[in-house]
């Protein structure tokens, strides 16, 4: 149920983000979506890719530090209120969110929200109880 996300440490220097993406493309790893969190000195790049393990290895080979983290992918209607409705339910369930990012799909009017919960297992259980469509890695990656 959980989706494996790659995260990597990027220094705030010209060319570092480019080099990281180049390492992934050279290894034939397709990026589905990403988010870059930045501070004044460094950034943390988070990626959802077709093959997380291959992506992590490619980054490490290129000298980056990379790790895989479990995140939860949730499907919401791509309309006003879609995300609000989801967040109302995470609040009800008292789920802690570390960070999140989202992307729209071409399949119907749906959007996918990637959420890093403090406790992903409990989050999946609580969201499903509340009728939220938590999507599986396989389905997400095919969309």
């Amino acid at each position, binding site marked *: 149920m959980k989706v494996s996300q790659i995260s990597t440490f*990027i220094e705030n220097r010209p060319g570092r983000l480019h080099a990281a993406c180049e390492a992934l493309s050279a290894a034939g790893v397709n990026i589905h979506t990403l988010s870059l969190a930045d501070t004044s000195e*460094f950034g943390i790049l988070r990626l959802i890719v077709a093959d997380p393990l291959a992506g992590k290895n490619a980054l490490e*080979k290129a000298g980056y*530090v990379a790790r895989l*983290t479990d995140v939860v992918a949730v499907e919401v209607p791509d309309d006003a209120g879609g995300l609000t409705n989801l967040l109302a339910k995470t609040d009800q369930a008292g789920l802690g969110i*570390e*960070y999140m990012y989202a992307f729209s799909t071409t399949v119907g009017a749906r959007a996918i929200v990637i959420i*890093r919960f403090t406790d992903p297992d409990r989050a999946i259980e609580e969201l499903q109880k509340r009728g939220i469509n938590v999507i599986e890695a396989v389905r997400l990656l095919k969309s």
Partner: protein
Amino acid sequence: MLLRENWNDTGQGFHPVSAPDYLPAAQLRELQLRRLKAVVERAYEHVALFRERMNERDLTPARIESLSDVSRLPFTVKTDLRDTYPFGLFASPMSEIVRLHASSGTTGKPIVVAYTQEDIQVWSSVMLRTFAAAGIHRGDIVQNAYGYGLFTGGLGAHYGLEAIGATVVPASGGNTDRQVMLLRDFGVTAICSTPSYFLHLIERAHDLGVDLRDLPLRAGIFGAEPWSTAMRDRIEKDSGIKAYDIYGLSEIIGPGVGSECSAQDGLHLFEDHFYPEIIDPATGEVLADGEEGELVLTTLSKRAMPMIRYRTRDITRIITEPCSCGRTIRRIQRIGRRSDDMFIIRGVNVFPSQIESALLAVEGALPHYRIVLKRERGLDQIHVEIEVGPEIFSDKVSAMEEMHDRLAHSIERITGLRVAVHLVEPHSLPRSEGKAKRVWDERNDG
């Protein structure tokens, strides 16, 4: 027949060449005094600088009657070697000198050291004793990753390894990928290098998919730079070997002045060839055994270039308690810092080793770091750049910021100074293949 035995600390007995390690104290002192008198005489007769300094003090070699008279002799310092560059301190004619080595000369002129055939034999014997103490024996395959050439490390270790009968792989420094290949393909059982280079090697091996813990490698003989106990723990954990500290300096002989034994608790000084004193670096006064100060060494048997009371700048203390290994020669504590590695910032004395232990106090922090001193708007600032390894990396910004603050606080707690900590990518800091350079002083630019 005798030499076919595997003489080492883990077996019975000892290598015949290691016999002086076990001399009864009285006999050792007698030997030291006899050699001291001879070396002072030799230096007085053949080295102008030493003779002039003796004359200034109204001293003659005949006035050296006991070991405690050493303290009456003048000190020799590193600048004496530079001032007499290249051959001014030699006590033998070139026709008797069979080898020259020289320092890299990072701070001006290099220093040059010389060896007669007898000196080379002594050097081989103390290196043999060094390796024997680390449990190396005939049958071991030893990769020597100290640089071969003008640096004393490579050839010094090489001769000792051949003397003990081990199989030497003279890899020299550098070309890390090939080092990893040799380690794996040759079934290397022990390695010699600087500790910082070995850390680099562990890291590179990991990137190449080689886990050193899966190889027959069991011992490392590391020296040529001060390294902390925490760094040793990390090396032993990440590579599955026992990491032995050795001590030496070119001015005295090269590697082979002192060495750890299986107890890994202080370094045995080869006192039959090198006479140690501990002094107060500020006053030059001799301190009692057990007190911490600067190590001063007198070469008791060097012929080509005797060194009388050479100030090593290394801070240590003499351990007089007997060692569990049975050796009677005394030990010095591992060198944690050098009196000239110290830098002064905002009036505070700081040693790189303090920063290293502060970084290692924070759980899981890798010891790849460098210290950059800058002058910003007239104020001296310490910048510490730390590589983010898998142990401290997190996908959460808050966790990374917390790690950053913990590292900064840890350094501040130990040094008492505010520092600017910068987290940088792995492999982004310069790597040394010889002695690690930790401090980059850029204050002259401002």
